[in-house]
């Protein structure tokens, strides 16, 4: 059950929760780009501070953010190791008979790790504080100008919203099928990679079959409720930009200016 938590919306009330999803999406998207412009200790510290402020404003337990870091810990370890071993420039920091570590390697490893952590903080902020339905509404609205070039913004948003709606259902189903096959003696824990992948076939096939069945049922139910695409539809939800949203974008402008001033 625990892995469900990663990236899941936490339904509490906070300043961040109440923002318009569009401004949050734009803010997070721009922050993610900004990360790649940081290039010294000052700029990374600035971004980390902004991230931590976001965490504080979200009123969500720091533990949950740490938990979402578990997802990328292996990526961080892997790239760190990669850089420590293969980057060979700058002065030598440590020399052992099997491995020589250079200053540049340590620097690169640190930069990559910090970037991953920043990415994860901002992405989690968006996912934790924005309900799936707000997120898809926001995306539909942001993408709708693309309709002029025949981009199916409504269909895209509908697909995404249905996918989000069914994630908990499919997760519960996966859990149940794994347990059922385990109870029939299936072994998911031992053997080499090939054997382990093969062990998941008894899970994947039933999961696919049930997903098709669900899709068919859902399509029938949608048809019975008069769904016929985006044309002629009205919407219950309306999005509105308020003062807080403008404040958020002003904050971003300040951070961006500061960053470009501080970077080397």
């Amino acid at each position, binding site marked *: 059950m625990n892995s469900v938590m990663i990236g899941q919306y936490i339904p509490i009330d906070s300043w961040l929760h109440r923002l318009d999803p569009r401004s949050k999406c734009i803010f997070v998207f721009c922050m993610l780009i900004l990360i790649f412009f940081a290039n010294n200790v000052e700029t990374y510290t600035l971004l980390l501070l902004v991230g931590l402020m976001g965490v504080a404003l979200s009123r969500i337990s720091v533990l949950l953010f740490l938990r979402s870091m578990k997802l990328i810990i292996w990526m961080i370890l892997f790239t760190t190791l990669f850089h420590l071993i293969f980057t060979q420039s700058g002065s030598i920091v440590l020399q052992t008979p099997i491995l020589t570590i250079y200053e540049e390697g340590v620097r690169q490893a640190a930069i990559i790790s910090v970037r991953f952590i920043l990415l994860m903080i901002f992405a989690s902020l968006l996912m934790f504080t924005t309900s799936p339905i707000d997120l898809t509404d926001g995306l539909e609205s942001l993408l709708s100008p693309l309709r002029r070039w025949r981009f199916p913004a409504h269909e895209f948003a509908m697909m995404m919203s249905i996918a989000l709606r069914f994630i908990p259902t499919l997760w519960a189903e996966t859990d149940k099928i794994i347990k*059922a096959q385990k109870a*029939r*003696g299936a072994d998911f824990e031992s053997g080499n990679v090939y054997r382990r992948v093969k062990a998941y076939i*008894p899970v994947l096939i039933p999961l696919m079959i049930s997903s098709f069945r669900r899709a068919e049922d859902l399509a029938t139910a949608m048809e019975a409720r008069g769904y016929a695409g985006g044309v002629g539809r009205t919407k219950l939800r309306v999005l509105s930009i308020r003062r807080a949203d403008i404040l958020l974008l002003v904050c971003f402008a300040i951070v961006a200016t500061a960053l470009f001033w501080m970077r080397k």
Partner: protein
Amino acid sequence: MEISFQDITYTYSIGTPFEHRALQAIQVQFNQGDYVAVIGKTGSGKSTLVQLLAGLLLPTSGVLQVWDTRIHSRSKKLGEYRKKVGVVFQYPEHQLFEETVAKDIGFGPKNLGCDVAEIEHRVSEAMSWVGLSPDLRDRSPFELSGGQMRRVAIAGVLAMRPDILILDEPTAGLDFRGQRDLLSILKRFHQHFGCTVVHVTHNMNEAAELAEQIVLMSDGKVIATGRPVDIFRNLPNLQVSGLDVPDVTKWIMSLNQKLSTPISTEIYELSTLVDELIHRGRRGS
């Protein structure tokens, strides 16, 4: 007492906003070879209880003692233990995956390490137990009707010849004849192999008809345990748990409101009830 839950607690998603205590201080024992029914409303903890028994979840605290195996919060390598326990989950037909009926039923025995001849033997035997015709062996399970798919899935568990057979709402979604057929299969299988059966249900008729011991659960706790008559006699306990008496009992109770000497509510078989009525009719009551 070969199976005993000793002060077991189970909590889901510890340390998250979704933390939820599903079981609290569970103390209960099952006798080897008994047919045990676990009854309770949805969310009473009965599914969690049997998943612990199946070795699919580890208790948060407390010990589960099954013969010589002790299961606690840090138990490892339960693979061997799980081989002795068969579990039929709700809607088990949703776990089928093989190309043919025979292969799917043989999946469990194969995992147990049986050789080809033994697998073959067990598949045939399990198919005859659940009443599947041998010519279905090489058919794809996905071409069968819903009721037949359910039988294939159950045969797949019976073929493992478990010492403990766990069934979670095995009759859900079947029509009346499908339910009756399945219950009689389970009854015969239990009598023949003498395995311990743990049958989770919210159908009181099933519990009254099959069980030697009933465990009544509510709100993550065991409220009462005993023979069916002990459980169904205690109306307040049932009401607190949001459950009812079996249909026969309910009907006898409405008849008893009119009778000066009430008919025993410990009758669960219709034929016994009818004998009693005829006996009273002759005697004149």
